[in-house]
């Protein structure tokens, strides 16, 4: 069984991950980090999660065809 709210939840999560990854990479976001600076580890992980979320969105959404 597929779920529209779940699918769009993944789409939203993916978009948030992209924005957060950019903000972590440029050092504008320090939330949940050990200190100030550029947090490339967070950025890369969130980038991977964004891709995973977009794939999950594609497969979790109900299809009409």
């Amino acid at each position, binding site marked *: *069984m597929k779920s529209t709210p779940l699918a769009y939840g*993944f789409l939203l*999560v993916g978009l948030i991950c992209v924005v957060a990854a950019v903000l972590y990479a440029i050092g504008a976001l320090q*939330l949940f*980090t050990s200190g100030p600076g550029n947090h490339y*580890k967070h950025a890369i992980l969130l980038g991977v999660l964004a891709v*995973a979320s977009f794939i999950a969105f594609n497969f*979790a959404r109900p299809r009409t065809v």
Partner: protein
Amino acid sequence: MGLLQGASELFPVSSLGHAVLVPSLLHWRFKQSDPSFLPFLVLLHIGTATALLILYRDQWVAIIRGFFTAAIRGRMDNDTERLAMLLLVGTIPAAILGVLLESRIKTLFASPYEAAGFLVVNGVLMLGFESLRRRAERRAALAAGSRTEQEAHFASAERISFLAAAIVGACQALAFLPGISRSGVTIGGGLLAGLRHEEAARFSFLLATPVILGAGIVEVPSLFSSGVPIAEYLAAAVLSGIAAYASARFLLRYFRSGRLDPYGWYCIAAGLLSLALLTLKA
């Protein structure tokens, strides 16, 4: 420590809780607040994940192939591809929470009292999952049947819904709390989603592997930079893997007809006993 972690990781009794409690109770010279403690535990977890990869090697080859095939094609054509996508959906919630809460989680390792308390909570959760499962069996008029007949009524991992997979995956985040068992909450979640016990355990073990390996990739480099005895730690990881492999084989056989109850009662008893011993020691 490696044997303890490997043996307790896949049992629904919280390896992390035991890893925090046992050294405190037995006066081992581990400092849970030490910055290398979490990476060391993660290294032990990689031993466990390697054991799971070996145990499910054929399935993982098919799942990875199925994942890329389905992702490129844009649709799922068989059960393996569906399982690959269910595992992806189940992994995302725990991975996000792990990335965001990593630095805060480390502060929780300082207190064995919290680990003992959460171990009791874990026990109550296990009993609750089984209670709800028995209710489902009664609703389906299976209470009078044999355990094999009861289990046959429920589904395989590939039939779980995407929403249920996401919820089961999110439950993994609870296991960041020392004392709450990752395999316990995911097996319990799988039971609530209508899986057979053995299938819930298989889904739990498959779901664990990418999360544990991902945590390892993030944490292990910090272990190598902190001046710890790497050879000793690697030996512990190997022991952890051997113990985990034996545990997984045992559990898959056990869950053909067994339930979570014994582990629930064990967690409650161990948690309460640990709290009493820690209080007396203080």
